[in-house]
């Protein structure tokens, strides 16, 4: 998890630039805020997508997130902007999930509709069979994520899909490091069980790891 020194240095530069952008956004400079949007929209959209498993709703959530972030930028009290914006995102996702529980029909369509395009993870020398296999694995992982309680899903997605540190996850989820650890451990354990139920989907290099 430790970053190389040069990476940390460029991280500092980025954060200095980011502070300037945030300050400008506070003064109402939309261009500055949009620079922040461009920087974080990918991670925001992907978190929403993984939490909700529906591109359309995820896009709505992402748009809502940035709109409420702009409104509430004065409420941002320093720290990690990334964590702050992801916290807004996760709260918006929780809202949507609650809505879904109240009207369960709409989520089923999303499950069927939303198959990730294979081009997104195609590698050039993969045969059609391998692509099909990978696609099935993706769908299987996705189903597994959906089976997790929302809090565990958030922890797993932030940590393993998006590569956030425990500290950042704690900020996003507004909980302690210990809570992050246990949510992540339980979520991963569930995911492992789910994945191993269809171990044949795993690429040979993974299976080799498991057997070895």
């Amino acid at each position: 998890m430790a970053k190389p020194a040069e990476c940390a240095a460029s991280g500092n530069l980025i954060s200095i630039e980011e502070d300037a952008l945030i300050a400008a956004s506070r003064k109402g400079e939309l261009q500055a805020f949009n620079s922040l949007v461009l920087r974080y929209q990918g991670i925001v959209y992907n978190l929403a997508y993984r939490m909700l498993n529906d591109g359309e709703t995820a896009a709505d959530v992402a748009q809502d997130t940035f709109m409420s972030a702009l409104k509430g930028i004065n409420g941002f009290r320093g720290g990690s902007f990334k964590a702050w914006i992801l916290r807004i995102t996760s709260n918006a996702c929780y809202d949507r999930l609650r809505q879904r529980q109240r009207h369960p029909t709409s989520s089923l369509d999303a499950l069927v509709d939303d198959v990730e395009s294979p081009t997104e993870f195609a590698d050039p020398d993969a045969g059609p069979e391998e692509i099909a296999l990978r696609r099935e694995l993706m769908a299987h992982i996705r189903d597994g994520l959906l089976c997790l309680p929302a809090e565990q899903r958030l922890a797993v997605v932030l940590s393993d899909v998006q590569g956030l540190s425990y500290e950042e996850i704690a900020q996003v989820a507004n909980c302690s490091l210990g809570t992050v650890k246990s949510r992540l451990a339980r979520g991963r354990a569930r995911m492992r069980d789910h994945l191993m139920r269809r171990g044949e989907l795993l690429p040979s290099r993974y299976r080799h790891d498991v057997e070895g």
Partner: protein
Amino acid sequence: MLDRELRCYGITELLSPYLDGQVSEDERRQVEEHLPRCARCGRELQELRVTVQALRDLPVIAMPRSFALAAQPRTLPTFFPYLRNATFALAAMVLTMFVASLYVQMTSVSSMPQPKDAVAVQQVESFSAVASPTSRELEKLDAQPALPAPALAPGPMSAAPRAPSGAPAPSAAAKQPQDEANNEVQKAPDTAETGTALVPQRATTAGGGVSEKVPSSGDGDEKSAPPANSAQQAPPQWPLLEIEIGAFILLLILGGATLAVFWKERRGT
């Protein structure tokens, strides 16, 4: 056996943070001591590692669109629509007023040959005073005094009370100038029909008229007559023009403000 299960239970809890290096030195030692001795926990760790790897390999989902906030309409001040609409409304108003005043002037010119001649003449005069007087009108105005002046000679303004009694005489006298004027029209057909036709007619009514205007227009001093009437006649036109100018200036200010607000926001985004 039970002891071992319990030990495993403690260890499996640590496997996930161990994978991330998020365990204390003590916990790390516990795990590393346990793993070589317990195949089950070793396998569990391995599966966990594979799971995490599979999650990391999940593709990044391409965004359907950019979420950059499409600024302008959102950040324009809330009063902007009102300002803009007010500008449009005022522009429409100014345009209507302009067209209307043009129309009024056109129709008043074309209606001049009607019996309301005195009024019409004054309108023409005030019109020509407002707009730059054309040479044609100037000609006409110059010609005017020459024709009726001798005939309508008698009293000055103070003669007003005498008007009814004095009327027949000027009217008789006026016929002469009218003829002369008619001749004049024929002599100078190139002058504007309305204008020239009007002049003698005015002379007719002025001479033969029964109204209070008779004495004043019957007065030999032609120059005093038109100003007196134009003072009565001008007011309906002058305020209108002032309103027009005022509205136009207001339009310029409003339009400028609208553009300024709009442009500032455009630049700002």
